[in-house]
């Protein structure tokens, strides 16, 4: 230790001129307010602002210079033998010089910063809006980074060795490796985990750079090129080990199956056997994963770059999924991918870039895709050729609601909520209905839905002929059956809200109501069917043969609405949630499922598929 201090003292004794320069510069902020043109500003504001800028600039600049010179200059001027001809270890030389550099930086910063800070403490805090320890930590951290990187680059470039080319190549390789480690975490929407991994990588890099000087001198000693060789070997081997460990960690984080989820959420399209299973993964902080899960086979397939089923859609035949893959959780734009989970299982990049606020739907056969962006630009694509078939700008677009579907492969119907963002009220406007002929490239305004409601729900019958519009006012809601193409009113009934109103296969409205004692009643076709007591109940799906499935958090009720009878009531308090119906999917069409199996999450960590008619529970997986 005494040798470390001897080296530090020696280096510090050499830096008198640096301390004098800092002291002279410390006067500058106090002189500057006297300069014409600067007098107009507040004296303390000028002193504190200039003082802080000079202190930070000088300290960071000096850190870089010291980093480049503290070892590199002695090596290139062949003076390192002075130390190595003394009984000094390489560690003592390195840490002595490092301590001297850090003390120099601290003293210079204090000399430059504090006089101006003390002259206007309040003004400084107002201008910089930073706690003093935080400011010191930021400047100190940045200075240490510059010092250590300066040392590494100084040693590499002063050696004039061809090895520099390899270093540059390895630097690029390390940057790519770091990106490859971080990116999958961002694609898993793991902001906290990414921050922690990035911080750990940075801390490991700083430790490597702190230790590399001692290793370099121990193995390179007084020889310039040997120093470079030793430094490069230590830095790149250590970094490679760190990156391999980090890479293995990322691989472990990313390699999740549905049973690795900590919280399971499910969303179930009304047709087909594939469902979306998503949630936060165990032991992986905030890493999220989305899977396509086949109820028939129990197979799952991971969709990357997407957190939940939002921004995804299944074709009506249940064979093709389109989803928006974002490069990271903050990205505003991504690319659309498609996958046919039942066949190839390979995700296909459609090379269609869309914003986060775009809506997209697949044609019923999954061959075509339509996208409408936040500005109303509607484009139809053919997926096989990845070609845009036609585009049109739909007027009066708001981001509050855009629904669309392929009536046929050549015809798109679009429902656009009229008011412009950010006005949320639809009272004065309602919904405009358009049809876009892809082949003729013509857009026709086919109808309007007028309402005085604040919020609006929309569902369209499977054949696309009738639409249910639920207008939610402050105190009441109304359900209207309208012509899905023109908006012409067909029938109207009081309603509770979108989740408590549905469009039945026969084209009529069904509504759910509860009384003060939490007793629910199903109203349909003039019948009032009591369905039992529950805190919450909503329409899950319609089965063939005039049967409705209703569910709450822990209960499932099957009603034969044709005959006005409750067929089954299952209640299991351990069931924490049932699958969400896709109320907010871009395609507003509802359908009748022949063999729907609602998914239920058990609090003991089991996902069950329910047979609503028999009450049978089939365990899908444990998590």
């Amino acid at each position: 230790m005494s040798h470390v201090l001897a080296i530090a003292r020696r280096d510090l004794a050499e830096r008198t001129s640096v301390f004098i320069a800092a002291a002279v510069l410390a006067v500058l902020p106090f002189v500057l307010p006297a300069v014409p043109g600067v007098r107009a500003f507040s004296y303390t504001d000028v002193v504190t602002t200039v003082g802080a800028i000079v202190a930070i600039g000088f300290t960071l600049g000096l850190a870089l210079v010291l980093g480049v010179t503290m070892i590199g200059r002695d090596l290139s001027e062949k003076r390192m033998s002075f130390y190595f001809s003394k009984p000094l270890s390489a560690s003592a030389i390195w840490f002595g010089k490092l301590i001297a550099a850090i003390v120099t930086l601290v003293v210079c910063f204090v000399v430059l910063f504090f006089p101006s800070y003390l002259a206007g403490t309040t003004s400084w805090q107002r201008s910089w809006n930073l706690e003093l320890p935080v400011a010191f930590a930021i400047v100190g951290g940045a200075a240490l980074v510059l010092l250590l990187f300066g040392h590494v680059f100084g040693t590499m470039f002063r050696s004039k060795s061809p090895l520099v080319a390899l270093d540059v190549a390895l630097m690029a390789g390390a940057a790519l490796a770091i990106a490859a480690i971080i990116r999958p975490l961002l694609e898993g929407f793991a902001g906290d985990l990414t921050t922690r991994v990035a911080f750990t990588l940075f801390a490991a890099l700083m430790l490597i750079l702190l230790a590399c000087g001692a290793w370099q001198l121990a193995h390179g000693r007084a020889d310039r090129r040997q120093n470079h060789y030793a430094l490069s070997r230590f830095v790149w081997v250590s970094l490679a080990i760190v990156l391999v460990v980090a890479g293995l960690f990322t691989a472990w984080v990313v390699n999740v199956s549905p049973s690795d989820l900590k919280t399971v959420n499910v969303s179930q399209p009304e047709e087909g056997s594939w469902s979306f299973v998503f949630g936060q993964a165990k032991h992986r902080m905030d890493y999220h994963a989305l899977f396509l899960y086949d109820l028939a086979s129990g197979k799952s397939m991971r969709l990357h770059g997407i957190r939940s089923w939002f921004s995804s859609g299944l074709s009506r035949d249940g064979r093709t999924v389109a989803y928006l893959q974002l490069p990271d959780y903050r990205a505003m734009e991504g690319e659309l991918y498609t996958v046919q989970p039942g066949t190839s299982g390979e995700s296909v990049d459609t090379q269609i870039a869309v914003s986060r606020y775009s809506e997209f739907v697949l044609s019923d056969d999954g061959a075509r895709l339509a996208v409408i962006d936040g500005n109303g630009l509607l484009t139809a694509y053919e997926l096989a050729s990845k070609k845009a078939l036609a585009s049109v700008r739909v007027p009066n677009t708001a981001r509050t609601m855009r629904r669309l579907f392929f009536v046929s492969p050549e015809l798109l119907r679009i429902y656009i909520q009229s008011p412009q963002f950010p006005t949320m009220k639809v009272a004065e406007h309602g919904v405009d209905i358009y049809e876009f002929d892809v082949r003729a490239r013509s857009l026709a305004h086919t109808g309007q839905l007028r309402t005085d409601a604040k919020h609006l729900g929309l569902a369209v019958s499977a054949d696309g002929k009738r639409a249910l519009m639920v207008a939610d006012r402050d105190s009441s809601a109304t359900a209207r059956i309208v012509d899905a193409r023109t908006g012409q009113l067909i029938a109207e009934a009081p309603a509770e809200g979108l989740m408590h109103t549905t469009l039945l296969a026969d084209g009529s409205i069904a509504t759910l109501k509860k009384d003060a004692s939490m007793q629910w009643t199903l109203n349909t076709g003039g019948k009032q069917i009591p369905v039992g007591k529950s805190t919450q109940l909503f329409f899950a799906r319609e089965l063939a043969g005039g049967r409705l499935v209703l569910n709450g958090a822990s209960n499932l009720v099957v009603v034969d609405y044709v005959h006005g009878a409750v067929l089954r009531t299952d209640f299991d308090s351990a069931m924490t949630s049932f699958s969400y119906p896709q109320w907010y999917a871009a395609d507003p069409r509802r359908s009748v499922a022949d063999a729907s199996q609602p998914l239920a999450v058990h609090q003991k960590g089991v996902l069950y598929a329910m047979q609503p008619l028999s009450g049978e529970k089939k365990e899908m997986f444990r998590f």
Partner: protein
Amino acid sequence: MNHAETPAIRIDGMTVRYGRRVAVDTASLTVPRGSVYALLGRNGAGKSSLVRCALGQQRATSGNTEVLGEDSWKHRTRLMERIGVVAEDADAPPEMRVQQLADFCASLYSRFDTKAFDARLDRFGIAKQTRFGDLSKGQKKQVSLALALATTPELIVLDDPTLGLDVVARKSLFDEVIAELADRGTTVFLTTHDLTGVEHIADRVAIMNDGRIVLEEELETLKARFRRIRFAAQPVALDAASFRTALVRNWGAGTEAIVSNYDDLAFERLRSNATIQSADVSAMSLEEIFIAVAGEKQ
């Protein structure tokens, strides 16, 4: 082998490469304790590379080096407590004052003799408040030597200590080394071009040429076996007289030969040969031997 028998330096098969260039080629030498050992060689012969490797400042490509009985690469830090070094280029930080240098070294060596250092500086006439960078080349060497000797070393290594010095400075420097030898019997290992200076103090010499040690022996033995023989005519059958010639060249109308295994009896037999009109033999200085061994080829 007890402590006294352990050589001060033993180098065995040292090779130093810089890329494809071989600076030191399987060099071996032994420096006995208490001796003054001079390593001679032309510029670029590989002397400094050998010294740096011997001091553990640089790693040899291959070979073994022991200094004072220890591996100089592995135990450099410990060894430097016992070794004084004067580098070829004055390597002390130029901003430091002589006094600061002395204080710095005093904090590193347990046996640093401040009084001896001060006394030498007085003899050299160097002010202690002078910055090292402001000293002349000779003064820098003198300060470096004073620092090295003040550590009371068992071995002092001088890498070309008189390079670029005038006659007075050279003499003063060698006087200090001789005085140290007289006082404490320190082992001296030096590389130099200054053959006349070293001839008076060296016990043993080695000549390095193109990275190889081409000659290593006691100086007196060396000087005894090398002779210059000049003949009035040529050619001369030196081989027949069992002389090994280091060099044969024309000398006026006659021939000059440098032989490396001279002995008087053999020479008398040669001179008595009827065909030889006249032959003179003369002793050679170290410089002449060096030129004959290392210089003539270039």
